[in-house]
């Protein structure tokens, strides 16, 4: 038999983000916790992929939810989902932070630190693991070197798999603008990655055939 608090927790799990936000604004702490658990990862990843800095990502995530506590009533369901709203707030905080700190590229030490956070699948052979890690690192550098307006569409559409419509809501622009920026961003990424990829492809292809398919 379900006890009272468990029942309440079960009910909260079934609630929409809008309902949780409404409860949170009415003073329900568990609603805040539930909403945080649902949405913190996407906010954190967005901030991390935009800034390349773990500390900035943590700060931004915290600021976003503190903002939600303070100014949550400004959310308008007619203008989009709670998730899009939070990512929009996160975007503003990230851009502000980057402007303030002039961090348009990640710091080297943090970059190294975060590299250890990424986990590779265990079923890959060491060389594939190395190649994969190298590819990821190159792509990550290329993404972080993009101008902010291109970086954010790549992070949202390519890395967070957000739809064009939601991306337009988050960025406050038209869908056509999202598409054109994404197109331009991919072209920039290709130009940045082409030399490295061609060399890496050539090397990895020869070694891969020697090691993995031997």
């Amino acid at each position, binding site marked *: 038999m379900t006890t009272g608090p468990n029942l309440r927790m079960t009910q909260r799990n079934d609630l929409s983000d809008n309902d949780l936000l409404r409860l*949170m*604004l*009415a*003073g329900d*702490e568990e609603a*805040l*916790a539930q909403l*945080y*658990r649902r949405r*913190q*990862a996407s*906010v*954190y*990843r967005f901030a*991390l*992929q935009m800034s390349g800095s773990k500390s900035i*990502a*943590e700060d931004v*995530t*915290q600021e976003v*939810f*503190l903002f939600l*506590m*303070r100014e949550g*009533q*400004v959310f308008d369901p007619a203008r989009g989902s709670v998730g899009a709203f939070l990512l929009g707030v996160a975007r503003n905080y990230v851009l502000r932070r980057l402007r303030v700190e002039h961090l348009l590229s990640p710091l080297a030490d943090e970059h190294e630190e975060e590299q250890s*956070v*990424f*986990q*590779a699948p265990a079923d890959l052979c060491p060389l594939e693991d190395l190649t*994969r890690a190298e*590819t*990821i690192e*190159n*792509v*990550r550098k290329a*993404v972080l070197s993009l101008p902010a307006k291109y970086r954010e569409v*790549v992070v949202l559409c*390519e*890395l*967070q*798999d957000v739809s064009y419509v939601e991306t337009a809501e988050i960025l406050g622009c038209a869908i056509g603008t999202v598409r054109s920026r*994404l*197109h331009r961003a*991919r072209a920039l*990424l*290709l130009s940045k*990655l*082409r030399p490295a*990829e061609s060399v890496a*492809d050539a090397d990895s292809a020869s070694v891969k055939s020697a090691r993995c398919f031997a």
Partner: protein
Amino acid sequence: MNCQKFEQVVGDLVRGRMMEADVRAGVLAHSEECGLCSARLRDEGTLTRGLQLLAVDTESLSAPPEMELKLREAFRQRQAVVPPAATSARPRYWWAAVAAVLLIAMTVAAMWWRSATPQQEVAREEAPKKIEAPKQVVAPNGPREVAPKEAVLNAENVEPGRSAVTPRPIRRNTKPRQVPETQLANHVSNEIATDFMPLGDLNPASLQDGGQIVRVKVRRSTLVRFGLPVNMERYNENVKADVLVGSDGLAHAIRFVQ
């Protein structure tokens, strides 16, 4: 399909976005024919795979667990400081509305006070005149008689053809004015007035509906028209008179004051 159209849709193709089957077939067919577009398709595919790898690698990342505790703590502190009802926007709007209404009310009151002040000053200036005027209705024992009997002209002195009936001065405001008795006494002793004499064919009885006494100055020669004696040496001087104006705005009667 040409290279330009290929360029437009190649991104959606490699990212697995929905597109029409014939467009997809056209893109693939064009990439087999065109070397540049074939290389572009390969590059786009490589880029998409790289981005997918990056997305998969960061997929498991999330904020540190202690952040939830910090946020809960901040939430509790906030609830302790600010009650939930005060966090909503509506009360804030109510306060703004109340402040706006108060501001408007104060502005209106200030404007009203400014406009009322000159009227009060005029009223204050006129007040002594009214007291000086022979408003007999305020007399405690009689409604209108203030002049001594010996000074009052008889009905025989009234111009022939005019009624000798003296109309009662009736004020619109029936509430007796509180005038000090000493002031009234001074007034009675200072002025001598004739009885009211009707003007033209107006019915003095209509004054029962209300009226007003207006103090005016007229030429002393006017006295002649009412059969009153005139000192010819002071023929061009003015003499004070009370005109009884009815509720219809017409002058009904007149008396002369000395």
